[in-house]
């Protein structure tokens, strides 16, 4: 299945890319497992925020094909 992954702000700088499509061979992979794949085994930053399909969620969330996952630092709008 395909997962679209997006990185914003300092997370994009750190990853060196804005987005990518990740192909995984099984349903039900968690956000944390996805993170390990895209980040080459690095730990999740403690302040990392996660959205799946534009809703906030946490690292234990299980993913399905077509999901859009976003990783980004604390927000600073307003």
């Amino acid at each position, binding site marked *: 299945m395909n997962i679209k992954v*997006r990185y914003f*702000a300092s997370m994009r*700088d750190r990853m060196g890319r804005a987005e990518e499509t990740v192909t995984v061979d099984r349903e039900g992979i968690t956000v944390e497992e996805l993170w390990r794949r895209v980040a080459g085994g690095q730990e999740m930053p403690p302040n990392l925020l996660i*959205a799946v399909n*534009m809703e906030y969620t946490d690292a234990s969330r299980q993913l399905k094909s077509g999901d859009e996952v*976003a990783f980004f630092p604390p*927000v*600073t*709008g*307003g």
Partner: protein
Amino acid sequence: MKVIVQEQPFDPYRETRRYEEQHLPPGKHGAVVTFVGTMRDFNDGHEVSRMFLEYYPGMTERHIEAVCLEAMEKWDVMDVLVLHRHGELRVGEPIVLVAVWSAHRAHAFDACRYVINYLKERAPFWKCESTPEGMRWVEHNTADPGVNSEGLKRRSA
């Protein structure tokens, strides 16, 4: 209710008046509270000349709208307008406008403050400031210490 995230600069006062003329029947609301956040030339001990404001198209609007709907449920509010910039900003320019119309001023104040506080907490925006030392991502927003902010001045004084 209207929520817009736009790149071009806006005049928050002209937009408030225009929205009111188009959407609010005269004589029904008694109180309007607006909050305008503008770009300062100083932040967190750094001199700032320009700013780039990144956002997450789609998610940002959705979360601002959710905050406005919450405010309209919690308080007796007739209408809410939110405008927010993204992209390149210059010193002194408005970043965000929150305008709230209500029959009662206490509701207008509470709802306006709720919207700006939760917008800052939840809407995906990221500020990147241009300082003499180069570009830097702003790492956190300052929180609203709440209604009892009288202590702020005493502590910082």
